[in-house]
C-alpha cells in the first residue's frame, strides 16, 4: 500500500491570458503513495484545480514529468491517456456532471459502455453499485428526478465502476448541504479505506482536516505538506 503511485517532478503549467502569462503551477514536486487520502487546499487561483486536471490527465504540463505507477504519462498520446483515465482514474465533480437524458443506472454504466465492456458484465456491476450506494429504487430515474445527494452518489458510483486506482474529487460537497455532504464524504472515505487513493480539492478546512495528508497550495506551489497521524474527526487546523 505504500508504493509510490504518483510522482510529479518540476511541473510547470503556464496559461496565456492575452498578453500576460499566468503560472498556474511552478516547479511543483509531489509524491503520493497508493491508498493515500490527500486534501488539496488553498485560495482560489492557487493551482488546485490545475493540479487535479494534470493528475487526471485532462491537462498536460508545459514542462516536467508526471509518473503514474512508475510510467511516464506526460508523453502518452491522447488516446493512450484516455485509456489510462478509463482504467485507473475516477472523477467526482462539484456539479456532478451527470448526462441529463440518461437514467441513474445508465449514467453509472457510462464508463463501461465507453470502454466496450460486455453488457452482461455491465449489468452485474451496475446492479451491485446501485445496491452499494443505496440507489436501487432510483435506477430508472433521470438526474433531474434525483436529490443532490443522490446525484453525487450516482457520480461516485460512476467514478468507481471501472475499479480505478484513484479517485479525483473536485469540491465534491460544494453543491450539497452539510448533512448530504457529510454522507458523500463518508462514502469517499469508505472507498479510501478499501485501498483507493483519494485526492480531494476542497475549500472547506473542516473537510480538509479529515484527510490524512493536507496539501496547502499557494501561487502554483506547495506551501505546506502536512501528514496527520491522528485519525479523523479532527478539529480545524
Amino acid at each position, binding site marked *: 500500500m505504500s508504493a509510490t503511485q504518483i510522482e510529479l517532478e518540476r511541473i510547470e503549467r503556464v496559461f496565456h491570458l492575452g498578453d500576460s502569462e499566468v503560472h498556474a503551477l511552478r516547479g511543483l514536486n509531489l509524491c503520493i503513495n497508493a491508498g493515500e487520502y490527500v486534501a488539496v487546499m488553498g485560495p482560489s487561483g492557487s493551482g488546485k484545480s490545475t493540479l487535479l486536471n494534470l493528475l487526471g490527465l485532462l491537462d498536460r504540463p508545459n514542462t516536467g514529468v508526471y509518473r503514474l505507477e512508475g510510467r511516464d504519462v506526460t508523453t502518452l498520446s491522447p488516446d493512450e491517456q484516455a485509456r489510462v483515465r478509463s482504467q485507473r482514474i475516477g472523477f467526482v465533480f462539484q456539479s456532478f456532471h451527470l*448526462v441529463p437524458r*440518461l437514467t441513474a443506472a445508465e449514467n453509472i454504466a*457510462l464508463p463501461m*459502455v*465507453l470502454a*466496450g465492456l460486455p453488457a452482461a458484465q455491465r449489468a452485474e456491476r451496475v446492479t451491485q453499485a446501485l445496491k452499494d450506494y443505496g440507489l436501487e429504487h432510483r435506477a430508472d430515474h433521470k438526474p433531474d428526478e434525483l436529490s443532490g445527494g443522490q446525484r453525487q452518489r450516482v457520480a461516485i458510483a460512476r467514478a468507481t465502476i471501472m475499479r480505478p486506482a484513484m479517485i479525483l474529487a473536485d469540491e465534491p460537497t460544494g453543491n450539497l448541504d452539510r448533512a448530504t455532504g457529510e454522507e458523500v464524504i463518508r462514502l469517499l472515505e469508505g472507498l479510501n479505506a478499501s485501498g483507493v487513493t483519494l485526492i480531494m480539492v476542497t475549500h472547506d478546512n473542516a473537510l480538509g482536516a479529515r484527510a490524512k495528508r493536507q496539501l496547502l497550495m499557494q501561487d502554483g506551489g506547495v506551501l505546506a505538506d502536512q501528514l496527520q497521524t491522528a485519525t479523523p474527526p479532527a478539529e480545524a487546523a
Partner: protein
Amino acid sequence: MRALDLIRFAREAATGNPLRAGLLVLAMGIGVAAVVVLTALGDGARRYVMNEFSSLGSNLVIVLPGRSQTGGFSPGNAITNTTRDLTIADAQALLTASAVKRVAPLTIGTSEISAGGKLREVMVAGTVSQYAQVRQMAMAQGRFLADGDWGRGANEAVIGAKVRQDIFGTGPALGQLVRIGDRRFRIVGVLATAGQGLTLNTDELVLVPVSLAQAMFNTNTLFRIMIEAHDRSAIETAKKQVADILQTRHDGEQDVTVITQDAVLSTFDRLLGALTLGVAGIAAISLGVAGILVMNVMLVSVSQRTSEIGLLKALGATQAGIRMIFLTEAAMLSVTGALLGYLLGQTAAALIRLMYPTFPAYAPNWAVLAGLSTALVTGIVFGMLPARRAAALDPVQALSKR
C-alpha cells in the same frame, strides 16, 4: 465502444432533443421524397410515351407526305418546292418491296355520323383491311373492313367503342345502317376499347374504306401510309426500299418523310431520360441543402453538449470514440430522414398512379438508390466537421462549461 451501444447512445442523444432531430429528419425526408417523386414523374412520362408509341403496332414504318428534314440544297428544290401528294397508287406500289409485309393507306377527316335521330361529329379514317393487322387492333364485335380492291369499297363501316355507345346506347349496332356525311354505311364491326392514346383515339373513330373516305372528303391524297416490315431486322431495309420506290414514282424527288417506330421511340426515350436525369439533379440540390442543415444542427448540438463531451473524455472516451458518437448520430438522423422521405415519395407516387391510372409514375431504381445513398453520404460528410470539432475539444475547458 460497441456498435450496439454506440447506436443506442446516439439514438438517445438524438431523441433527447426531439425538435432538432425532427427538423433534420424532415429536411432530409423532403429531399429524398423530392428525388423519388420527381423522378417518378419524369420516368412515368417516359414510360407513358413509350407505351403509347409501342401501341401503334410492331415493326412499323410510317410515310408522311412532305419533307420534314432539311437536306441542304438539291436541284429538285430549285425547280419546285410543292410536294407531291401521297396517293393510293403510291401505297399499292410499296407492296412490291421485298421487306414490306403489309401496307395500309390512311386518310383522315371529320364528318358527322347519324342514326336513329342521334348525331355526333366523328373523326373518319379511310383505310383498308390490312390496317387492323398493321395497327394490331382488336375487335369487340363483328369484323374489320373487308379485303378487296383499294380503289373501290363497299359501304361498310367499323366504329369505335365510344361512338357505338353514343349512337346506339345499349342497343345492337352490328348490321345497322348509319349516315356518315352524305352516304349510308352498314356497321360491320365495333372496335375493342383501347383507351386514350397519344395518337388517334380509336374509341371515337369511324373507319370506312379508303376510296369512299377520299370521295367523302373530295380528295385523292393520303394522310399517312402505314407499313409493316417482315420483322424487326427488316425495318431499316423496308425504310430504304419505301423511300426509293416513292422517289422513283415522284420523278426522283425525295418529297416524303419515312420514319420508323424505333427511331421515334429511341428519340423520345433519350429525350425523356434526360429530362428525368435533370429533375433528379434539381431534387438532389435539396439533398445538398439538407446536408448543410445536418452540419448546422450537429454544430449546435456539439456546442450545447460541450460539458457532456468533456465528461465523456474524463470517463475515458478516445477522440475517435467521440467522433464516432457524433458521426453515428448524424448518420442515424440522415438515414431516418432518408427512409421517411422514401416512404413519403413512394406514397406520393402511388397517389399519382391512383389519380391518373394511365400514368405509370414509378420512381426508377437508380434514382431511389442514388437518393438514399446521397442522403447518407451528405449526412456523414457534413457530420464530419462537427464530429471533429467535438473530438478536438479541450476536456478541461469543456468540463468547466455549464
